């Protein structure tokens, strides 16, 4: 009777979570609908800040989708036993985040109903167009990868599928970084460093998401994550956070060093010439919250604990949003340098730092994408056997 009651309780909880996911996703869809009806005029975006908060959410989810697969890669491709039982969850989260990110990206289009045109009319010179193939290919490869893991007869193909997924996601995140890296027009972008930077960022963001979901699943199932595994994953997250901070530092140092970039570096790092919000977000959001705090929580001997790992993962995700906000919106807010050596002014904001304040529909659409990723994860966890079994095996053995 007890187990029956527990099953009923679990089923009820499942449907509550599904309903919550549906609600958040639905609100996001409603926000997108109102943007479709009224146009982007109801958002904070304008002709200076053309990519706003939805892009911050979308790019976070797409980059994290690539990084969350790291756990599976370390298990399947590099044969690390502790990671292997986590590969299915890693694959599922990758699919869910990718879907959430693409939903936001697609619904933020000026003409979302024309998204099929992106498949029927294809410009091979466009990095965006490459990404259309990279995203759909990623989803297909992960689906096959999950199949090879769940279908016993296909298990022997799991490693080749894992290798394919590993290579594909490197290319995918190179593509995401290159969306910006190939933009010659703006001071903030046009750097070959952006592709590897996004790959390293994806490692940290993806692992942070993985750790959060994993610990939540363990807590809901009344189980405890083995300490050795938690410690390993925590150390790995610390390595990724440090590597991300290093590459971001190099990116800003090159900007500080080049005379032609110094005005931009002064703006984005120190708030010179206009809105100081981006500098504050960079230092407090990315550096302190997203890098220093998680490193302390993960590495300081007196702080290390299961709670500290969760707090560190949350801080990394907070830092990720701060980084992307500064990178995407701050990068656009800095005025285009059309007349070097001149001060420019016009009725169209030439020479001025552009103002941007995200409005409700943007928040709701972005959060709706997170809701969709959450919903897919909840359903996937219920339908597929993605719960890591290593502690059970250890307990029985």
């Amino acid at each position, binding site marked *: 009777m007890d187990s029956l009651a527990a099953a009923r309780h679990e089923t009820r909880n499942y449907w509550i979570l599904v309903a919550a996911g549906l609600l958040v996703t639905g609100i996001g869809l409603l926000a997108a609908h109102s943007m479709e009806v009224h146009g982007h005029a109801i958002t904070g975006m304008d*002709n200076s800040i*053309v990519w706003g908060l939805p892009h911050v959410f979308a790019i976070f989810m797409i980059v994290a989708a690539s990084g969350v697969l790291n756990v599976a890669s370390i298990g399947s491709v590099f044969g690390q036993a502790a990671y292997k039982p986590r590969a299915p969850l890693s694959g599922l989260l990758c699919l869910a985040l990718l879907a959430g990110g693409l939903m936001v990206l697609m619904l933020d289009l000026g*003409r979302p109903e*024309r998204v099929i045109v992106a498949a029927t009319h294809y410009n091979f010179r466009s990095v*965006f167009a490459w990404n259309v193939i990279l995203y759909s290919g990623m989803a297909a490869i992960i689906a096959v990868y999950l199949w090879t893991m769940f279908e016993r007869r296909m298990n022997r193909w799991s490693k080749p599928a894992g290798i394919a997924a590993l290579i594909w996601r490197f290319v995918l995140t190179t593509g995401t970084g290159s*969306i910006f890296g190939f933009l010659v027009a703006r001071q903030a972008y046009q750097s070959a460093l952006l592709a590897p930077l996004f790959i390293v960022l994806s490692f940290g963001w993806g692992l942070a998401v993985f750790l959060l979901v994993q610990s939540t699943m363990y807590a809901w199932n009344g189980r405890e994550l083995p300490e050795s595994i938690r410690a390993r994953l925590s150390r790995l997250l610390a390595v990724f956070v440090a590597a991300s901070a290093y590459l971001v530092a190099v990116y800003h140092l090159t900007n500080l060093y080049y005379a032609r970039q110094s005005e931009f570096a002064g703006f984005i790092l120190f708030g010179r010439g206009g809105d100081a919000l981006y500098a504050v977000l960079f230092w407090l959001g990315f550096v302190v919250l997203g890098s220093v705090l998680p490193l302390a929580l993960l590495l300081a001997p007196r702080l290390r604990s299961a709670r500290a790992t969760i707090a560190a993962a949350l801080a990394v995700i907070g830092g990720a949003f701060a980084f992307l906000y500064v990178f995407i919106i701050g990068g656009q807010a800095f005025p285009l340098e*059309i*007349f070097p050596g001149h001060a420019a002014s016009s009725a169209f904001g030439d020479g001025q730092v552009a103002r941007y304040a995200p409005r409700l529909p943007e928040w709701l659409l972005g959060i709706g994408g997170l809701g969709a990723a959450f919903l897919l994860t909840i359903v996937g966890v219920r339908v597929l056997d993605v719960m890591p079994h290593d502690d059970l095996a250890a307990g029985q053995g």
Partner: protein
Amino acid sequence: MSARPPGGGTPGKPQPAPESAARRAWLGVAAAGLAGVVLAPGIRLIEVAQAQSTGGSPGGGADPKVRWGLLIDTTRCASGCTECVDACNRENGLGTPSRSTDARWIRKVEIKEIRTGRTASLPVMCQHCASPPCVDVCPTGASFKRADGIVLVDRHTCIGCRYCMMACPYKARSFVHEPLTGQLPDVPRGKGCVESCTLCVHRIDRGEKTTACAQACTQAGHGAIVFGDLNDPASEISRRIREIQTTQLRADLRLDPGVRYHGI
């Protein structure tokens, strides 16, 4: 084999009434008529399109021998004068832009050299680059360059991703942020698409030899904007560019813009 009874019925089954055959014949005629009504305009449109694509200029498509461009003489451009901007807004039905979400295909920029304090006033619009970054980055190919050098947006395939606006070094493109009404027949525009200066392509395709901005500037007595064929050595624009020093905006990017500036 038994002979089929009149009316095409099967032996042993009820015979159709004569009015049923008449109805069938009528339906056949109606279907043929309907097909004609539906298909004929399409066939007519194909004929028109083919005639236009093979015909000569004007109305015969872009001429690859031509490179349309502008020369902006900033020494003649008056600070505070917005004749070119107003003419563009009227010509293309853009209204009077007041907010940062409103479309601006051309804008007046006041510049001041930081070291010397030297000032200049000049219009900035799509520079109709020979190597346009907006065309490179457009995922659907909606941003395209015509054979005569004019860079346009195909409003049927633009999905409104705004990547071209990220890529343009001149802030020359606008996104339509709101539903539009009262568009002009010559200037297709719509919510959710990106747009920019078309170099008055509708005028050029009618065989006219000037843009609204250049015409207004000339009429206002400034003559600061010269429109013409950069490939024709005898054109006024080519002659002037040979004679006076001109610069391209963001020449370091080597996009080979079709708009040249004198006096900056």
